[in-house]
């Protein structure tokens, strides 16, 4: 039996490293109080981003939040980032302990 596990959404975004600060600032304004970032490289419709130098570096951002906040974040991405940046995102449900943290 898993004690006190609640459900949240894990939203993952893969995008250009150059937008990191701007994106996280926007997220903070929408109420994000926690996130995790890892450096990444990859291929997509904007071509190969192989992290060989700053312009070609990508990041992978993970945010655990409730469905409402996830929706708000997606709306922000759709409006301000989708058109002009290499970016994908996906989400799914996860079980968390310590719900007060998220």
């Amino acid at each position, binding site marked *: 039996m898993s004690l006190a596990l609640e459900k949240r959404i894990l939203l993952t975004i893969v995008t*250009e490293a*150059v*937008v990191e600060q*701007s994106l996280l600032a926007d997220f903070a304004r929408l109420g994000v109080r926690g996130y995790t970032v890892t450096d990444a490289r990859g291929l997509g419709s904007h*071509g190969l981003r192989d*992290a*060989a*130098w*700053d*312009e070609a570096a990508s990041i992978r951002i993970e945010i655990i939040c409730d469905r409402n906040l996830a929706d708000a974040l997606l709306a922000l991405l759709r409006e301000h980032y989708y*058109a*002009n*940046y290499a970016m994908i995102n996906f989400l799914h449900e996860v079980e968390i302990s310590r719900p007060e943290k998220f």
Partner: protein
Amino acid sequence: MIDVVILFFLLGLLAGLARSELKLPPALYDSLSLVLLLAIGLKGGEGLARQPLLPLLPQLGVVILLGVAQTLIAYAALRRLGRFDRANAAAIAAHYGSVSVATFAVGVNWLNARGIAFEPQLPIFLAVMEVPAILVGIVLARGMATKTDWRRIAHESFLGKGVVLLLGGMAIGWIAGPEGLAPIRPLFFDLFKGILAIFLLEMGLIVARQTSELRRRGLFVIGFGLLMPGFSAVLGIACGMAMGLSVGGLTLLATLAASASYIAVPATMRLAVPEANPGLSLAAVLGVTFPFNILIGIPVYHWLAVLISGGSS
């Protein structure tokens, strides 16, 4: 004879074009550029310590105007002749109105190797010319009435790595003077060319990555990437004459003007004018202008400087 640091650039270029597995750790590239920026700054600051600073202020005004003028002219050319949309024209123009530290370093190396002196304030020009083109480019793309986040942009421009290390290095060089700098000379001065060589090896690899993009972009980008620096160099020499620079100073200011940014400007414009295609600017700057400047441009600018100033080479 061809400088050894240029041979390293060609090695990187060939390796990249042949799709070699050769890669430099990003941390090495960052570390080398840090040392180069500090070294250029220290050297300049050391020289400035021997002269009064106040007379330089008008010169700074002139190079700021030079950067602004270049950006506006490049924008007009790209809009009218190249039929680029506003955002892309503005973004590319900002790259060409700004400057490239690597090109400057190769120019310094070229002059040093030939024993040609230049004024110690040139590194300040380098630092000062990095930013104005960015601001002009953003205004060109957005107009003044925009909700551009100017605070953020000012912060990123004026407190970016390049400006901080150059001006910081100059301040240290100025305060410490030749004697104070002596203990760190082995790292920052004796190793300068070796570090520049490895740095240019990586630049060759980066330039090689632009070729596929270039092929897609067609002739106008190539033509612009070749002609704009020549034009800017003449503008730079004119400004330098107005300031009374030596032939070495003229050559280096021409080189600065002819150079186009590929670090500070792309990062800032990506955020400020996101609808501009970054591949386009980088293909022109890195694929055409940077190699042109370091392989052919610098000696030509020197020849021009001698010619126009009527001085001896």
